[in-house]
């Protein structure tokens, strides 16, 4: 047992790595690091959670349990008593005297808690649903779910002299002058003055006494800014600086790594130490700013620069910790493949309504896989040659061509009613609504006694549910049938939180996804099914049949990986250290036999 503490096991996550793409790149010899692991060890597909959203899958990774035990089942959730919506990643208690307080939503112990109890040290880096970071034996840097300084998942600002900026969200209009006084927006509406001056040396940016010159087409270094005791940090890129146009991209203002007001790292001092040693690791949910490209605040090239920079920074921090701290269990999730596939899928999917062939961007997805492969090679060296290494992904990827307005469908089929002229969640006429869709894969029955204005009696619950399921299955629009199936929660989950789960989980065919207003419980004037005209053109949160959306798993040792699932990694790590796997875990050790 004691000797086992000198052993090392590592799980490297390539978020969103798709088995089909990996297979073809392996065949073409474009992922030599993974090919070598495969040749000396083993490779297979990895079953993921039925709802293949990253937070759900990574929560099952951490706990070895299914969602009805750990409680993370959709990106967006509601409180049935108040009908208030919230993020499914983390609970926020908003304090109006300044500091927000965050609590975990995950209801079970994670692998590093079990290991801490045995005095085995862990490195948990950028794993989704680990915010707020917790004190463990080892080090934790929080991943997806980490808020920026405003409490959002990462919202940028474009300072722009074009009149369009007056109408556009996340834009601040600035006059075409040599000296421009504007403001940075922080939490609770706080504003801090920022001054831009145009000079021969480029753009002079001033925040208080802090001054930096930035040239056109260049990125600034990090700025620190104080919002009444809460420190944030951001960088900017000068996109245009000519006589007739000024355009400045300001990144989301993230919590300062020097002095974070919320727990982005445990122990807290490690955040500052890493800032000194390796720089900023971008402690925010969307580390590379997907919203900026999706909302067309920046072009592809700028986004790619930011993505590569961020990946590089995270690798530096990771390798530093791998080499310079004591650990036995290592887990890190790397984002680039997932984010690039979301935003560049239209370049490789000729059925996407925004498809275009592009000399450079049609290659971006594959080149990102290659880049990650190359970096994994150097990371594995940093982990040490005796480490048992797994490389996994939490789900595969699929095209996102058509939007489905699930709430509008429910309304047209008579299950939901909006108040006159209304179209948002707040406009639902509860007195006449039997069911509503919310989040990416959830339908809730407006059940009496559970929902605030519930009208469906316990007696009618089953028949309403059956009725909706059969409606979805037979639904077609313009010859398109978006649903493959619809399941009841108890058919796919088991555990004590089952009663909190959605009543129905719709299963989409590939190419279809719920439309974004419907995700927030509303609907739009568009048709029930219509083209997705957003750059966000690849997705994975269908959910699809389990067999269609698997991730991948590589292991440096030859193991039987047939039927391996994401819930198996935590039991595997326990088994590796000779710790008995708790009965409660749904996964099984991959080291058996």
């Amino acid at each position: 047992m004691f000797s086992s503490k000198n052993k090392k096991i590592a799980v490297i996550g390539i978020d969103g790595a798709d088995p089909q793409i990996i297979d073809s790149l392996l065949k073409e010899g474009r992922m030599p690091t993974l090919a070598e692991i495969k040749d000396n060890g083993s490779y297979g597909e990895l079953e993921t959670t039925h709802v293949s959203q990253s937070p759900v899958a990574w929560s099952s990774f951490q706990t070895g349990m299914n969602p009805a035990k750990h409680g993370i089942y959709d990106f967006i959730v509601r409180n049935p008593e108040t009908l208030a919506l919230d993020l499914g990643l983390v609970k926020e208690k908003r304090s109006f005297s300044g500091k927000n307080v965050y609590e975990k939503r995950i209801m079970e112990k994670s692998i590093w808690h079990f290991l801490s109890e045995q005095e085995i040290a862990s490195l948990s880096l950028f794993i989704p649903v680990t915010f707020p970071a917790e004190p463990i034996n080892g080090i934790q840097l929080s991943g997806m779910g980490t808020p920026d300084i405003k409490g959002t998942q990462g919202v940028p600002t474009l300072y722009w002299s074009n009149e369009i900026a007056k109408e556009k969200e996340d834009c601040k209009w600035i006059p075409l002058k040599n000296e421009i006084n504007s403001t940075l927006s922080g939490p609770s509406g706080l504003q801090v003055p920022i001054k831009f001056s145009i000079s021969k040396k480029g753009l002079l940016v001033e925040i208080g006494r802090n001054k930096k010159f930035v040239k056109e087409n260049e990125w600034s270094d990090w700025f620190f800014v104080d919002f009444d005791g809460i420190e944030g940090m951001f960088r900017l890129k000068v996109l245009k600086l000519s006589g007739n146009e000024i355009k400045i991209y300001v990144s989301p203002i993230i919590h300062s790594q020097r002095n974070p007001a919320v727990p982005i790292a445990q122990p807290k001092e490690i955040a500052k130490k890493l800032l000194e040693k390796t720089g900023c690791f971008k402690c925010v949910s969307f580390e590379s700013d997907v919203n900026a490209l999706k909302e067309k605040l920046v072009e592809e090239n700028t986004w790619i620069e930011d993505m590569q920079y961020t990946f590089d920074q995270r690798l530096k921090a990771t390798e530093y910790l791998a080499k310079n701290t004591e650990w036995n269990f290592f887990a890190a999730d790397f984002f680039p493949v997932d984010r690039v596939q979301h935003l560049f899928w239209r370049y490789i999917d000729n059925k996407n309504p925004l498809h275009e062939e592009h000399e450079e961007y049609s290659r971006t997805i594959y080149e990102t896989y290659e880049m990650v492969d190359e970096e994994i090679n150097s990371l594995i060296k940093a982990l040490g040659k005796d480490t048992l290494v797994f490389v996994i992904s939490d789900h595969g990827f699929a095209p996102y061509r058509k939007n489905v307005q699930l709430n509008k469908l429910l309304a047209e089929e008579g299950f939901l009613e909006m108040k006159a002229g209304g179209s948002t969640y707040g406009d639902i006429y509860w007195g006449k609504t039997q069911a509503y869709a919310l989040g990416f894969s959830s339908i809730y029955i407006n059940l009496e006694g559970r929902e605030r204005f519930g009208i469906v009696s316990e007696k009618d619950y089953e028949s309403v549910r059956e009725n909706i399921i059969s409606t979805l299955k037979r639904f077609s629009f313009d010859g398109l049938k978006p649903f493959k199936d619809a399941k009841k929660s108890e058919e796919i989950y088991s555990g004590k939180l089952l009663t909190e789960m959605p009543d129905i989980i719709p299963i989409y065919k590939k190419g279809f996804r719920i439309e974004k207003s419907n995700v927030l419980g509303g609907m739009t004037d568009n048709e029930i099914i219509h083209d997705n005209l957003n750059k966000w053109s690849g997705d994975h949160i269908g959910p699809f049949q389990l067999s269609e959306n698997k991730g991948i798993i590589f292991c440096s040792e030859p193991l039987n990986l047939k039927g391996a699932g994401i819930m198996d990694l935590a039991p595997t790590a326990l088994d590796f250290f000779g710790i008995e796997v708790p009965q409660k875990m749904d996964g099984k050790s991959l080291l058996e036999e």
Partner: protein
Amino acid sequence: MNHLNALESKSIYIIREAYEQFKRIGMLWSIGKDSTTLLWLCRKAFYGRLPFPVIHIDTSFKFPQMYAFRDKYAKEWNLNLIIGRNEKALKEGMNVKKGALACCTALKTNALKQVIDKYKFKALLLGIRRDEHGIRAKERYFSPRDTDFKWDYKNQPPELWDQYKSKAEGETHIRVHPMLHWTELDIWRYIQREKIPITEMYFAKNGERYRSLGCMPCCHKVKSKASSIDEIVEELRTTKTAERAGRSQDKEQAYMMQKLRSLGYM
């Protein structure tokens, strides 16, 4: 003492105490039924002559009927009316298309901050009620103790809504909610009894009425046949729908929506 008298007398007590404590005090008037009732209570508290200004935060997107109502009664009641507008943001084109949260923050929160800075208010009277918002009322709660009517603010840090508690203690202002203990039905019964003038937008026309008022782009009518105060009182006794259901969002919801939308998936 009957129920409405008890509510009234407690509110008037709080209003007078707040004025005694702070002197530099103002009252926020949104032209809606709650703050108009609060205005009525304030006038009663000081026998028709308000010793402090009334502040209207004007986003420029209110309904024309609201502006007309404001101007009529500001004159009739001889109010010292301060109109707070964030002119800079309006000039730069701020509107709800830029995002509900950005819009509310600029045109409400920051407009109010400008007023507070300019007039150096130490306290503000607001007409919010505990029953108005399932989740929010509990959080934003600053009132005297129920038992002996003594102020508790020295022991209990004031919870300021969208205002940030600034580091220098002297710079904060206190929010006072004299009507926290009223319900929506209490308000209407009191309006009925006192014959308080109220904008006609609350009364049903063609089967619809406004139940809660805000800015034009963010307000919807609800289905209703109640075309008089008596009918509204009757409707409220039987309804199950939330009062603010016709409001697309308030700042709190707007914040939540922005937070949810910031998921790249949206």
